[in-house]
Structure formats: C-alpha cells, structure tokens
C-alpha cells in the first residue's frame, strides 16, 4: 500500500517537471524557436476542456443516466462547424485589441466600461470558485484512493491532511506556469505546451483504463453491453434520471460554455498564435473528445456489473484498475486524472487572477490613492489573487464537497456561463448591442441562475424551507424555482438552461433597444464587429500642420507606463508607440498622428491591464489636451466638409483616398530614396567608398543598422553602419575581433536561395555577441547581392521593430537597394580590374622596352666596332677568329631579339585565337628528356640540380612543338625563380598523361596563384628577374587547347609544383570544333 505522503511526493515531482517544461518552452520561444506555435499544440491545449468532470464524473453520470453525458461533447462538436466564423472573429479581435480575457472582451465591446468588467469578474468569481473546488475535491479523493483508503469513508476527513499540500502545489504551479511575468502580449507558450502534454497523458490514461476494463475484466464491448442488458442496469438508453431534453440542454450549454468558460477562452482565443490553427482544431479537437469518451459507458457498466455501488461511480476509472491490483495502470490513470484537474485549476486561476487584478484591483487604485503603489506591483497582486482564489476554492470544498457529486457542481457552474452568451455573442454580431443591454442581460441571467439552480440546492441542504420548492414563494406556484411559470415537465437542468437563456436574452435585447449607445460608440463597435473585413489603413500620411511636440508626449507616455512597468521598459514601450505613428522623439506630431498615438498607447497598455483599465488610465493621463482634441476634431471636420456625400459613400471615399494618398506618399518617398541611392553609388568607383555608402544608405531609412558582406573581393570584406556612431564603432570592433567571420545561417541561406531571408530573434543567435550588445535587434532581413548571375555577397538590415519586415513595401525597397548595391559593387570590382590591367600594361611596356634594349645595346656596340674598323680600313687586318667572334655575338643578339619578338607574337596570337595544333603520335617522356638535354648547360649555369622520374611509353596524340614549349616554359621558370633542386616526372594514369615539375624555391603566395596564369602577370618583381610574364599564360593556353589542365600547388617557403595533365587522345568533338587542329597529321 502506498501512503498519502508518497502520493503527494510523486504528484509534487510531476508538477515540478511540468513547471520545468513550461520554463524551458518560454526560454526557447524567447530565443525565437517556436515550440508552442503549432496547430497540434494549440488543439491539445484545448484538452483543458476535459476536466475531472470528463475524466471521472462522466462515468458517474453514465452510471445513472446512460448516454446523457454525450450532450456535453455534442455541443462543442456542433459548434466546431462554426469556429471559422465565430472563434476566428474572437481571435482576430484579440489580436487587434490585445484582449486578455473574456471579461476584457466584454468591456472592450461595451464602451470599455469598468463597470461591465467589474460585474463580469464578480459573477465569474462566484460561478467558478465552486468549479475549481470540484477539481480539488476530485484530486483529494483520488489521492486517498491511491493511498489505500475507501474514498466514501475517508473523504472528506482525509482532505485535512492531503488538501493543504495540494493547495500549495496548485498555487505554486499556477504562478510558475501561468503568471511568472507580466507580458506585453498575454500569451503563455509554456502553459500551452504543459496543457498539451497533460492532454496527451489524460487521453492515454483513460484509454488504458477503458481497454483494461473492457478487454481485461470483460470480453469486449459486446460482452459488457450484453451483460448490462441482461442485468437491467440501464433502463432505456438514458437510465432512470436521463432525458432527451437533458441531452439537448447540455449540448446547448456546453456549446456556449466552450467559448465562454474563461479557461477555454484563454486557450482557444488568447493563446492562439495563428488563425490557421483553428482549421486543424476544427476536426482534431472533436476527435480528441470522441476518443476520451469512447470507454465511458463500458467503464460505468463494468463497475456496476462487478458489484461496485453506483454512488461511487465517479471513481470507477481509478477504482476498477486499483481493485484489480493493476498498480502501474492505477498510477497512470491517477496522473491522467490529476492532469485533468490540475490543468484546469492552473488556467482558470490564472485567468481569474488576471481579471481580479485588471478589473477589480486597478480600478480600486484609481479610486483610493494609497493603493496607487499597487500598479507597480501588478505581478505580485496577481500572485496574491491566484493564491486567494485557490484557497477560497479549497474552503468551499471543505464546506460543501461532501454534499455534492462532481457532475452536480460542474453543471451548476456550466449553466451559469449562459448568462454571458447574449452579451458576448450578441455584441460580436449586433451593432445595436449596448452597455445597458449587456448589464441588464448579465444581471437577469445571474438572478435566474441563482433562483433556478442555487435556491433549489439551498432548499435541499435544509437552509431554506422545502415548501419554497413545492409551493413557490408566498404560495405562488408559478414562481416555483424548478417549475417557473408552470414548466414542471422539464427536468431541472433544461429548465434552468431555458430560463437563463430567455431572461438574459430578453433583458439584453430590451436593454439595448431602450438605452442605445451614442453614435461615436456605435462606430467604434462597428470596427470591432467588422474585424474580419479587410483592414482599413490606420491613418493617412497626409501633410498636416504640426500640433504637439513628440518629446513632451513621449514623457507623458513614459510616466504612464512607469506606473505599471519599470522605467527602462516604459521608455522602450513609449518609443515603440512613437515608432508605430512613424514619429521620432524630436519630431512634431500632426493631429492624426496624435490621435493614433493615443489609441496605440491604450491598446499596448490593454495587453497587460485590460481594455477598461487601459482606457481609464489614458483618460487620467490626459495625453490629448482639450485644445489638441479640438484640433483633431477640426482636422477630421475639414476632411468631412470637403466631401459632400452620403455617410456610407463618404466612408468609402475616405478609405479610398487615404489609401491612395498613403500609397502615393510611400511610392514618392521610395522613389526619392532610390534616386538618392543611385546618385550616391554613382559618385564613386572605389570599393571602400561604395561599401561604406551602401550600409549608410540603409540606415536609418530602412533599418537601425546594416551589414554588407562581400565575397568576390580578394578576401571576404564587411562594412557596418548604425544610426548611433558610438554603437557603430563598438559593433565594428566586435565584428573585427571575431574575424574571419563565420557567416550567419541566414547569409548562407540568402546566397543559396538567392532570395531575401527574414529572421526574428531577440538574442545574438549566431551573430558575434559583441555585435548584439552594441547594436541590439529583434530581427533582420538578409538580401543577396546578385549581379551578372553571380552572388557577390549579402546586405543584412537589422531592426529593433521586427514588424517592419512584414511591410511588403519596406521589403521591396530593401530588395531594390540590394540590387542597386550589387551593380555598384560589380562596377567597383570591374573598375579595380581595369585599373590592374592598365597597371600591368604599363609595367609590361617598361619591361618590354628593357628586355628589347638589353640585346640591342651589345648589338649596337658590336656593329659600331665593325663600322669603326671599316672606316679605318682596318677590317681586312682583323684576325679572322676575332671577326668571327664579333659576328657570332651579333647573330646571338639578333636571335635573342627575334626570340623575344616571337614570344610576344606567339602570346598575342594565342590571346586572339586558340593555338593551332599539329597533332601527331608522340612519347611525352622522350620529349621531356629532349628538352632537359637541351637545357643542361643553362641548368648548370643557374645552379640547378635536376632529378627526373620519367615513365616510358607515355604515348599520346599531341602537338610536339607546343608540348616542348610547355616543358621549356615550366623548366625555365623553375630555373629563373627557384634555382636549386628541380624534380621532373612524367606518368600516365589511364587516358591522362601527367607532367609534374617541382622546385624548392620560395613558393607563391595564395593571392598570386590565380594571377600568375594571366598575361603579363608575375609573382616576382620585374626588377629582380627578366621576362615578359607570358610563360605560364602560354602553358595554360596550350594545355587548354589540348583539352587538358594546368594546376599549381604551392606553399610559401616550401616550393611550388606545376602539374600539367593532358588527355592522351584529344576528344573527337574538341578536335573537330577546333579549326586549327590537323587530325591525322
């Protein structure tokens, strides 16, 4: 047997694990990784609908009323058919107005009235505390069952020991999972994931229990139903207490309850992160409900068949496996049941605590000054409210828990939610719905609920005289609580449902008709009702006179937000509000901008404190003075007066012209910006200036900071700009210290996909940490720089307001900037290339002059010497040997000159067209040996020792002269630049012949390796070595003409290796395509 303390310890560990999951999920979400933002997490979080009533209570209900329990699930399933219309509308309103709870929606719709919000909050507290107590009662009872007690005897006494630790656990988990921090958007991804996990656990638990009872204790569904039929356990399909009207009324109330229960509103509306998730939930959630109720009837009938009393049917789900000594299964079922209660308690308490703090405490702070400090401690106030709610629910459970069954408490709470239906749903679709109507509807519904559901319970408890139920108050039988106006044929539940709906609906309609809203309020309500219509522009960028100083308004806004958040957060939010109206702190605000700023401040504050308190707070702040309000009215009036048309046409035209003007203004601004871009980029062809210009053009027009990263320069280079020069310096220092920069994933993706990549993140997330610290951002867009079919690099724009990326205009402008920047970068690169070419040409002319002059000088001297001898008639007297020596020298110089001219001619011919090849069958090894033999004396003069490894039989079809030229050029290069040991090898590898020449010279730097194969380019200085710089260029052209390749492997200080690979047979199509080739020659 397990003791109660062990069960509590296990439960504490389980709850602790859930808290850790919630914390982990929220951390991941803050880093930009979406864990909760998917359709299935959203759907599974809706499983909060399946409370202990579903998990345990259904079986108890089915034991006495057969299939009646299905009504509670039929309602939401039928409602799912309309989710796309109703639930999506609620979600859209929540997103637009940052609604935080059901009561917040109510007050938003009805004049942002604090009275409506207070009334709704109080009504919900009265109705839902019993519902929370029901969950606590079940948890206590199941703990006692698992601890080996008989709940029917041990309960309620065991609650004295088990209750307090459970209550403490619930308070802590509510705070950690639901209200750990005050958020600008009241979404809780951690809580969604926890609810989803609990949803899975409770489904698995109940399915396992059902399968165990149906197939373990009996022989399947047929066996259970057959035996139950024979035993007469369920007279009819609805038992002794069920009726069709009960099913239908429960379907109706569960249909409305699904939308109106605060915890369901929280998960289905407030926690929705994407409207598209509703489409998945439409079918997935009803499937979940079907699965969780599949075994309800077999378990109920199975328990009764096994002789368990019907009065303990509420615990059959756990007591049957436990009684059959299936301990592992019992633990699973218990944890599933605990999840169904715990999840509901956490969400319900969290929403109620939010309502209490926003709609009761905050209005109280405005009424009583000493409480004003509470605004700064809103979070603590919520924690206290949550603790109070759970403790009150526990006290309720202690007082009344033993008198009522689960289902009774559940139905009473559920039915009460109907009073909200006319005000909420009517308000979503009826323009005429008014605040007075909603208040009267709520009051009438609440009074009818109390009279038809609570009074009978008090009578049964003996607190009120019984004759009230049988004869009615003062003997008026028409006012009997369970047979109002003679409807005695209805069961108590459908009776209450009928009268609550009728009374609240009639009061709502008549109240709205008799006390309509003012025209201005109707227009505001219309904007809420038409929320699914295409969005109208918030305000036009029409030129208007300056009305108020933005700095002064900002100070007021900061003062307002400081009352609820810290000073730095208040400043940040105030700046964000100003940015939304596109104004800087030093600007002047136009009337329309000021009006929009006021609305923005109110909406932003509403996300944390609710619409009613936000409205009241903004009114107290006096953000817009009376004079300014008049100026705003005049601005609107001028627009209205200019258009003498009917109101509907007027609205249409205003929308049209505002949109048109906004588009024109944006387009003009964009064109001006792009013209500036072109002008600035055309101003210079220097790469450094161009790079700096690009990043500074983007800031601050398009982004807070910009990073340009170029690949196609000699080495990757980057430029960075920020609106604040000190931040820019810090960021550049951070980037420089982290060089070579490992490209962020977005940069690589943008270059691969050749499309812009947008990324949202509030953490460095792959960027150097110093960059993020110096220039914080919440997202960035990376654009590839494309020119001539090549990706030259990327331009990344960093923004602190990531929503700007969603504006397609800004994105298009960013793309255009990237396109123009790419052209500018390409132009700068081409210009640099042209400059290099001119420099190479000038150097070549100098060298060519020098090279040609070198043999000319001795030639001239020799000729002058002969001329002098001839003039002095001494030529005949010159010894014959001496004359021959002079002539030999002359011939040598002429040959050298002719060689230089031939080399130049050959290079220029090769440049103009491919070299002509006279192909013949030849042995490459023999050719190489010949060349080496011819250069033996030069090798010796240069101080080179040559070792050769020449394979025999490397035969192929090549041009003998050109092949010799290749070997000669490479060999003379080695002699010239790397005197010392030279290794030559010739080998064949399949169809490839490979010539390798390796030296032990100084090697060639990486930057020069590609360049030296270009004409007139050399790694060494012209002054140190002679030659035109054409040798390697010719080698590459000849190798290419043969369909081969030449490669260089070199490490500075370790020598160089040139590898020439030639195909042994020139491919036919290549030789055919080459007009100069002579096949077969």
């Amino acid at each position, binding site marked *: 047997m397990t003791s109660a303390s062990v069960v509590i310890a296990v439960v504490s560990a389980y709850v602790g694990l859930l808290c850790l999951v919630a914390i982990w999920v929220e951390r991941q979400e803050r880093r930009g990784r979406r864990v909760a933002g998917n359709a299935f997490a959203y759907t599974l979080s809706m499983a909060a609908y399946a409370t202990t009533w579903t998990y345990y209570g259904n079986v108890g209900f089915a034991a006495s009323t057969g*299939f009646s329990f299905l009504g509670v699930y039929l309602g939401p399933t039928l409602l799912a058919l309309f989710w796309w219309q109703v639930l999506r509308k609620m979600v859209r309103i929540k997103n637009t107005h940052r609604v935080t709870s059901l009561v917040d929606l109510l007050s938003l719709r009805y004049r942002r009235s604090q009275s409506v919000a207070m009334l709704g909050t109080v009504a919900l507290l009265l109705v839902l505390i019993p519902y929370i107590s029901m969950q606590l009662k079940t948890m206590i009872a199941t703990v006692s069952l698992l601890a080996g007690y008989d709940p029917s005897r041990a309960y309620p006494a065991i609650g004295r020991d088990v209750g307090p630790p459970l209550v403490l656990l619930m308070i802590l988990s509510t705070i950690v999972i639901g209200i750990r921090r005050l958020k600008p958007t009241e979404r809780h991804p951690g809580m969604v994931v926890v609810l989803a996990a609990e949803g899975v656990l409770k489904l698995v638990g109940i399915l396992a229990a059902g399968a165990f009872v149906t197939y373990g204790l009996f022989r399947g569904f047929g066996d259970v*139903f057959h035996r139950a039929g024979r035993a007469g356990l369920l007279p009819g399909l609805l038992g002794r207490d069920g009726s069709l009207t009960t099913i239908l009324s429960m379907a109706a109330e569960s249909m409305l309850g699904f939308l109106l229960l605060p915890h369901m509103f929280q998960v289905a509306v407030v926690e929705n992160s994407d409207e598209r998730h509703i489409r998945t939930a439409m079918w997935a959630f009803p499937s979940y409900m079907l699965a969780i109720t599949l075994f309800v009837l077999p378990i109920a009938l199975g328990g009764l068949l096994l002789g368990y009393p019907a009065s303990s049917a509420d615990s059959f789900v756990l007591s049957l496996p436990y009684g059959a000594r299936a301990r592992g299964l019992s633990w699973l079922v218990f944890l599933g049941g605990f999840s169904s209660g715990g999840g509901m308690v956490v969400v319900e308490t969290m929403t109620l605590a939010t309502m209490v703090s926003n709609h009761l405490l905050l209005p109280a702070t405005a009424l009583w000054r000493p409480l004003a400090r509470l605004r700064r401690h809103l979070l603590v106030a919520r924690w206290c409210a949550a603790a109070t709610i759970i403790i009150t629910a526990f006290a309720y459970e202690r007082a009344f828990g033993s008198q009522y069954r689960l289902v009774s408490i559940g139905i009473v709470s559920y039915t009460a939610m109907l009073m909200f239906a006319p005000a909420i749903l009517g308000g979503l679709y009826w323009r005429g719905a008014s605040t007075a109507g909603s208040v009267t509807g709520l009051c009438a519904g609440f009074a009818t609920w109390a009279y038809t559901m609570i009074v009978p319970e008090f009578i049964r408890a003996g607190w009120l005289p019984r004759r009230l139920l049988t004869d009615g108050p003062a003997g008026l039988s028409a006012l009997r609580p369970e047979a109002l106006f003679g409807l005695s044929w209805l069961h108590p539940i459908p009776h209450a449902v009928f009268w609550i709906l009728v009374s609240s609906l009639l009061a709502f309609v008549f109240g709205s008709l008799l006390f309509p809203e003012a025209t201005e309020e109707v227009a505001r309500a219309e904007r809420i009702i038409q929320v*699914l219509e295409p969005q109208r522009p918030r305000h036009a960028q029409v030129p208007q006179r300056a009305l108020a100083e933005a700095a002064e308004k900002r100070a007021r806004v900061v003062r307002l937000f400081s009352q609820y958040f810290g000073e730095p957060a208040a400043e940040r939010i105030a700046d964000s509000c100003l940015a939304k109206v596109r104004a800087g702190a030093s600007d002047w605000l136009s009337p329309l901008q000021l009006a929009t700023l006021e609305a923005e401040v109110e909406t932003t504050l509403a996300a944390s404190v609710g619409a009613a308190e936000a409205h009241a707070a903004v009114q107290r702040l006096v953000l817009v003075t009376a004079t300014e309000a008049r100026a705003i009215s005049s601005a609107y009036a001028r627009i209205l007066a200019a258009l003498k048309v009917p109101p509907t046409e007027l609205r249409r035209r205003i929308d049209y012209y505002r949109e048109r003007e906004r588009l024109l203004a944006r387009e003009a601004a964009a064109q001006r910006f792009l013209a500036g871009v072109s002008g600035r980029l055309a101003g210079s062809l220097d790469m450094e200036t161009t790079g700096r210009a690009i990043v500074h053009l983007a800031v601050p027009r398009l982004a807070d900071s910009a990073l340009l990263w170029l690949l196609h320069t000699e080495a990757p280079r980057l430029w960075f700009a920020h609106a604040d020069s000190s931040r820019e310096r810090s960021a550049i220092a951070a980037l420089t210290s982290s060089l070579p920069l490992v490209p962020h994933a977005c940069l690589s993706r943008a270059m691969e996909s050749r499309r812009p990549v947008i990324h949202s993140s509030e953490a460095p997330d792959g960027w150097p940490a110093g960059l993020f610290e110096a220039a914080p951002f919440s997202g960035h867009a990376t654009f590839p720089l494309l020119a001539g079919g090549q990706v030259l690099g990327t331009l990344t724009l960093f923004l602190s307001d990531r929503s700007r990326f969603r504006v397609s205009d800004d994105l298009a402008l960013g793309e255009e900037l990237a396109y123009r920047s790419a052209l500018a970068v390409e132009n700068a690169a081409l210009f640099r290339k042209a400059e290099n070419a001119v420099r190479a040409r000038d150097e070549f002319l100098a060298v060519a002059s020098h090279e040609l002059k070198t043999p000319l000088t001795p030639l001239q001297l020799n000729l002058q010497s002969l001329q002098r001898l001839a003039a002095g008639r001494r030529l005949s007297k010159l010894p014959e040997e001496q004359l021959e020596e002079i002539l030999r020298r002359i011939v040598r110089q002429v040959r050298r000159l002719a060689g230089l001219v031939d080399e130049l001619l050959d290079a220029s011919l090769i440049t103009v067209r491919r070299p002509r090849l006279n192909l013949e069958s030849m042995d490459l090894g023999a050719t190489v040996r010949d060349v080496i033999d011819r250069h033996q004396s030069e090798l010796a003069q240069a101080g080179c020792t040559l070792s050769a490894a020449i394979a025999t039989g490397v035969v192929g079809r090549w041009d003998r002269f050109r092949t010799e030229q290749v070997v000669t050029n490479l060999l003379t290069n080695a002699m010239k630049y790397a005197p010392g040991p030279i290794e030559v090898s010739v080998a064949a590898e399949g169809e490839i012949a490979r010539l390798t020449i390796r030296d032990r010279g100084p090697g060639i730097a990486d930057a020069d390796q590609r360049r030296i194969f270009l004409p007139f380019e050399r790694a060494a200085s012209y002054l140190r070595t002679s030659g035109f710089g054409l040798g390697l260029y010719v080698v590459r052209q000849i190798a290419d003409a043969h369909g081969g390749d030449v490669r260089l492997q070199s490490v500075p200080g370790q020598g160089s290796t040139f590898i020439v690979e030639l195909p042994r047979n020139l491919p036919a199509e290549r030789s055919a395509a080459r007009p100069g080739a002579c096949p077969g020659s």
Partner: protein
Amino acid sequence: VELSSAKRGRGRVLGNPVFAAALALLTAMLFCWPFVRMPPLSLGHAYLHLFGSWAMLILALWRIARQLGRLPRADRRPR
C-alpha cells in the same frame, strides 16, 4: 473545365456557414434518433450509431477545414 468549376462549387458549399448550419441540424437529428425511436435500440447498437454519427461529423469537419484552407480569401469571409 467543367470538372474544376464543379470542384470549386463544392468547395464553396463546404465553406458556406449555411451548409454548416444544415449539417449541425442533421447531426443533431441523427443523435436524437436512438432516443426517440420505438422500439428502442439495444445498448450496443445505440453505441455504434452514436459514435458512428460522431465520427462521420468529424470526417465532414475535416473536409470543411481542408476546403477552408483552399478557398480564396473572399470566400472565407463570413456572410
């Protein structure tokens, strides 16, 4: 062309709230039928009928949800 326009027509029907209302009414009637029928169905048959109807409604919901994802934006607006 005829086939694609027929498909489009079917898509609009599935996304129409009036169709959803009619389907809700039909399902409610299907659910009520075992409780008003004489003689009453056996437990097993009633169980099969009720959960079978429920499963069929879920199938219809799946088709509607899929269709809503395909409809052009204008057709997804409530009427």
